[in-house]
């Protein structure tokens, strides 16, 4: 990048050429970033502690309850891992779409459609266990992709911004789910004989054959096989993104669609494909939640996992590998939050803590970028002023 002194022709400046700008060394930059992360996370924790004190609780017992509920012992660790699976899968897809310049914020809808389709297959098709699970997951993936495909189609044929269409489609999907679980002819569970007519707006529980196996039923460690799926996807897509031709094309299209077209990249196919992959993965996450831990669909099925995935993707920005620890933290707060009631503090605190930690994770990089930008602007200005006088 050319800098300030180049703004004036050398012959016009009476001063000797401006010395090169002092760039902070990469190491001190990284150190500053880490320091800032620590400080802002501490601030988030202090705010949480203040909120606990305000309602008359003890911060130490709250934090230890979150730790005990999420990481202490195999059982809770398994739950935490189970809760991080959908976040990883959703976030991975989001990362790809965002990298291709398709800002998908419709994860909630895509996940919901995936789970609905998965439940439809798992409850209506008669197949042996493993086949049924695979069919349900494939159906979920396809439904998520279709829901994202609506947005892709609107973008291509009607030039409607993906941000807007995916946002709107979320709420349509939620109501579609509510509709299907309110009709006996669709997904609502059959009323038991002698039961009240109408019944609850939810589907029947999946049969045992349609559930994901939980390997390692050790005395107290059960985690669904979804963990393997999630980690496998991160490794596969992480490698593809950084090492394959497709990965490069995704990045090119995200950076500059016009230039990519000149280089012979099929922009619509790459960008639309990235959006479809994102929807497919969100749908798959819905299928994994359905077959791995929830076992039925009902209103509010998404349980905010779609949004958590979106946030995780935007927090890690461009590093697929960082998804694993970040999603684990989301899982920790979620499962640890269930233990809060034992401390007498309302468990809504976990939502507050999650929000504050996300803001704390967003703050450091953008703050340093802003500082860096201001520094460059200042030195460019002073260089111009000096050579003008």
């Amino acid at each position, binding site marked *: 990048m050319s800098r300030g002194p180049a703004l004036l022709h050398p012959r016009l400046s009476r001063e000797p050429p401006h010395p090169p700008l002092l760039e902070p060394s990469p190491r001190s930059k990284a150190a500053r970033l880490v320091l800032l992360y620590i400080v802002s996370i501490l601030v988030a924790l202090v705010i949480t502690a203040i909120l606990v004190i305000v309602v008359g609780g003890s911060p130490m017992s709250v934090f230890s309850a979150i730790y005990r509920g999420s990481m202490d012992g195999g059982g809770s660790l398994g739950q935490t891992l189970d809760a991080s699976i959908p976040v990883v899968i959703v976030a991975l897809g989001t990362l790809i779409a965002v990298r291709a310049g398709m800002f998908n914020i419709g994860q909630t809808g895509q996940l919901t459609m995936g789970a609905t389709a998965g439940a439809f297959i798992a409850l209506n098709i008669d197949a042996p266990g493993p086949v049924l699970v695979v069919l349900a997951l494939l159906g979920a993936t396809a439904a998520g992709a279709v829901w994202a495909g609506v947005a892709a189609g609107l973008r291509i044929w009607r030039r409607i*911004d993906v941000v*807007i*269409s995916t946002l709107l489609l979320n709420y349509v999907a939620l109501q579609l789910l509510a509709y299907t679980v309110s009709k006996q002819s669709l997904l609502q569970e059959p009323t038991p004989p002698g039961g009240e007519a109408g019944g609850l707006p939810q589907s029947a529980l999946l049969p045992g054959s349609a559930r994901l196996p939980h390997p390692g039923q050790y005395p107290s460690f059960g985690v669904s096989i979804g963990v393997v799926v999630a980690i496998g996807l991160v490794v596969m897509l992480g490698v593809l993104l950084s090492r394959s031709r497709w990965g490069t094309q995704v990045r090119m299209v995200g950076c500059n669609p016009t230039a990519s077209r000149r280089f012979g990249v099929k922009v619509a196919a790459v960008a639309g494909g990235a959006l479809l992959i994102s929807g497919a993965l969100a749908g798959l996450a819905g299928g994994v939640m359905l077959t791995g831990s929830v076992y039925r669909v009902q209103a509010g099925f998404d349980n905010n996992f779609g949004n958590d995935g979106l946030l995780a993707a935007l927090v890690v920005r461009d590093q697929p590998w960082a998804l694993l620890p970040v999603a684990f933290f989301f899982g920790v707060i979620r499962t640890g939050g269930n233990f809060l009631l034992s401390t007498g503090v*309302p468990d*809504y605190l976990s939502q507050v803590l999650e929000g504050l930690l*996300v803001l704390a994770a967003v*703050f450091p990089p953008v703050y340093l970028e802003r500082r860096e930008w201001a520094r460059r602007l200042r030195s460019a200005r002073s260089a111009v002023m000096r050579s003008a006088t």
Partner: protein
Amino acid sequence: MSVTDLTIILSGIVKLSAPLLFAGLGEYTAERAGTLNISIEAMMLTGAYCGMVGASATGSAVLGLPIGIGGGLAVAIVHANFSHRLAANTFVVGLTLNALALGLTDYLFTSFQLSSHSITAAKVPLLSHIPVLGPALFDVSWPVYFLFGLVPAVWWALQRSQWGLEVRACGENPHAADATGITVNRRRRQALYVCGMLSGLGGAFLSLGIVGQFNQGMTAGIGYVVIAAVIFGGWTLWGTVLGCVLFGTADAMGLVLPALGHQLNPQLLLALPYLAALAAMVFLAKSYRAPRALARPFSRGLA
């Protein structure tokens, strides 16, 4: 359908549209400046909660309103400084603020008792005697009358004032706006502050003017209905107002029609705003144009 039924339906429409309209005016302002403001849900919820806290603390529902406005503004200040000073992604900030506001209001609401307060209805002397329309429009909780002033005020501020021209320029072409000497991110922050105050007012009106108490998560997604209304309105003021009234009407129908013995599909009614916004964009694509820089962060390039 008798005349009283009609009056009941009309006053339901007015009641349910009013919070949408307050927030819709704000969202319109923010979107014209280039922010697709998702945190409007947080602003309304915080406004509703702060309004009720203010009323409980001061013992007067009237004083609750400005405190609710302050609550919405507080959310806007966080959002604006994160996304238009530090250039953090506006959706991360918005979604996080939504979750944060919901969690925080739930947390505080379950921990501290709030008393109930409601703003009284005020009759406009002559106009309230108009048959059918009168009781619905002119015998309502008085903050509704603000709308008669606020709609033209927002129109003037955005379409006729220097500030509005600059705000719209920031939403259409921030780089050109920057070149003419407008501080783009400052204008965007200001538009977001306006949005926060109006949404806070809408939220406070919801809790103080309509329900009379605060309930957990009481906005229940109407912030997103407001976003749909602005999109449905094609990013014009009159379209936004139309969208808010239309979606308020749909909301009122969902309450009124079953009571009058008509069957309606509740899910379809709830999905209506979003379907209407999508359909409007698909079928009226020629006249529908989002601000060109909507949801695109601005940072000044260096030579």
